């Protein structure tokens, strides 16, 4: 990120442990996702303070910055997320939920059944019952392989394509989110039918 002298950056600080409150998610599931996100962050960053800085980028919008607070995972948490893909997947759900809420006030409504071409459902306050959107989430947190912004961009193109084509034709707008735990980048793409 290039920042010229005198630029004032507004950093919204989010405590992951508290951030599940606005959403229709059970405490257990949210706790599990937060733990997974902490395990993924801990691979690359020191535990807060200070908060881990994340940059959220969306097409046609200015980027915004989140300061994410999480707790260093203990050995039990590390052990339960030994499976890297599982940890990355659940950790990415956590960061996607937080990011979409900060971006546009989206609230998590639930998970979709597997293999439908989407992972999570979101709706905003005041939306009709049928106006929810489906969201495809992907995380990048492979230990050992540094993943740069280029790979992240390739991944968001892939995910956007997945939302657009899905298993069935997209009948409402959809969202794709890619979370890079190493770089602290979150890419969001909104897909129109």
């Amino acid at each position, binding site marked *: 990120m290039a920042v010229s002298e005198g630029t004032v950056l507004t950093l919204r600080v989010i405590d992951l442990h508290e951030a599940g409150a606005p959403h*229709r*998610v*059970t405490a*257990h*599931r949210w706790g*599990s996702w937060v733990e997974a996100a902490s395990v993924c962050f801990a691979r690359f960053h020191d535990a807060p303070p200070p908060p881990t800085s994340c940059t959220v980028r969306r097409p046609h919008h200015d980027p915004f910055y989140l300061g994410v607070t999480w707790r260093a995972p203990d050995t039990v948490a590390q052990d339960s997320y030994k499976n890297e*893909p*599982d940890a*990355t*997947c659940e950790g990415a759900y956590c960061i996607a939920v937080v990011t979409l809420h900060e971006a546009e006030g989206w609230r998590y*409504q*639930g*998970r*979709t*059944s*597997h*293999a*439908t071409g989407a992972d999570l*459902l979101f*709706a905003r306050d005041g939306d*009709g*019952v*049928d106006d*929810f959107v489906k969201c495809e989430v992907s995380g990048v947190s492979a230990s050992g392989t540094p993943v740069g912004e280029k790979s992240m961009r390739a991944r968001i193109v892939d995910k956007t394509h*997945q939302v657009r084509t899905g*298993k*069935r*034709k997209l*009948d*409402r707008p959809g969202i794709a989110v890619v979370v890079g735990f190493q770089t602290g980048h979150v890419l969001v793409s909104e897909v129109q039918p």
Partner: protein
Amino acid sequence: MNPFEDPKRQHSEELAFEAERAWAEERQEDAFRLFREAAKLEADVALGAPLTTPRARGVLAVSAVSLYYKGAAFEDAKVLAYRFLSAPEHLTDEGRAELEDLVDRCLREEEMARATGTSDMVPLECKLDGGRILVGVAPEPVARKRRERVQQLLMRSADWLAEQPYREQGPSELQTTEQIQVYEAPARAASYGLRFYVGTGRQVPTTKRVTPEQVVAHFLSMAAAAEQGPEAVKALVDDEQYARGYIEGFRDIAPDGKEVGVVACSAPTWRVRNAPRPVFEQKHRKALEAGIQTKLRPLRAGEREVIGKLMEIHAVWSGQWITLGDPSLPDEKREILITKDAARLIQRCVSLRTQEVRAIVRKPSGNFKSDYLVDIDPVPKQRSSDDDE
């Protein structure tokens, strides 16, 4: 009331979460029970959803039916799905298609459970599209070749995970002992689908335990690597023969551009999470083909390459050697190569017997007449892009 805000949904999601945990901890019966409890609650919410909100109704119905499906309650899943499908005007096209898909899965897996006595089969699908593929119709050689290759690569994946030595031919020990079983169930698909189920039978204590989930996940990881190119496969598999086996296998699965346009692989199951969904096009086939035609590692100083038919393998107490050459020529024209790294090379030679091979050999430092065998590989067969079709 917004059905998404129904407290029963929260409870259902909690139970589904517990079920996933139970499954991860290998408490299969608990997982099935919890999924069924979650399904009952979700079904209540779905059935109570307003008829005027077909999209929400469809999502909730699919969710409830899929929870019964995950709980291996196939009959309950079908009954609920039919209930919603009997009023299609209150569902979206997407909701209808998803429910029909779930009913189809339930029918197959119910049958599978009856045949195998277990409900832990893991599905793998390869969808063929474009070229001469029509809806549910494909030229027989096109489908057959890919069906065989997918089955071979699934067993190759099982062998690799079980740390079995590379098999040049013949069935896998895991298959003959029924530790890993592969079934085929023709898929419903918008184009033409090959659908397999990988399951487990009895466990043989001498072999490293491998689960169907691991086999399918490994297959898809290798497919995703093959989609990136032969080098990505070699980076994941540090055994040259296994790597070549995967590259050749996925080359044959990838489309030629004429008969088949696209081949997409996926595991439509919650049991293999975050699995890649590689999509092969003609360019991937070409890249994999090019990867196979690369030579053995480059020759180093003091080494030379010998190509010939592997004729004899001697493994006796006093030493190990092989002979390479043209069977029509006299003995003195044949190469006799001493194998220094006996166990590994003799094993490879046995798997390559009677084949045309390419060997890297080195002059010994002493007064030995015969060269040392350093490495050996089969000579790849030249093939056109679509000779299997």
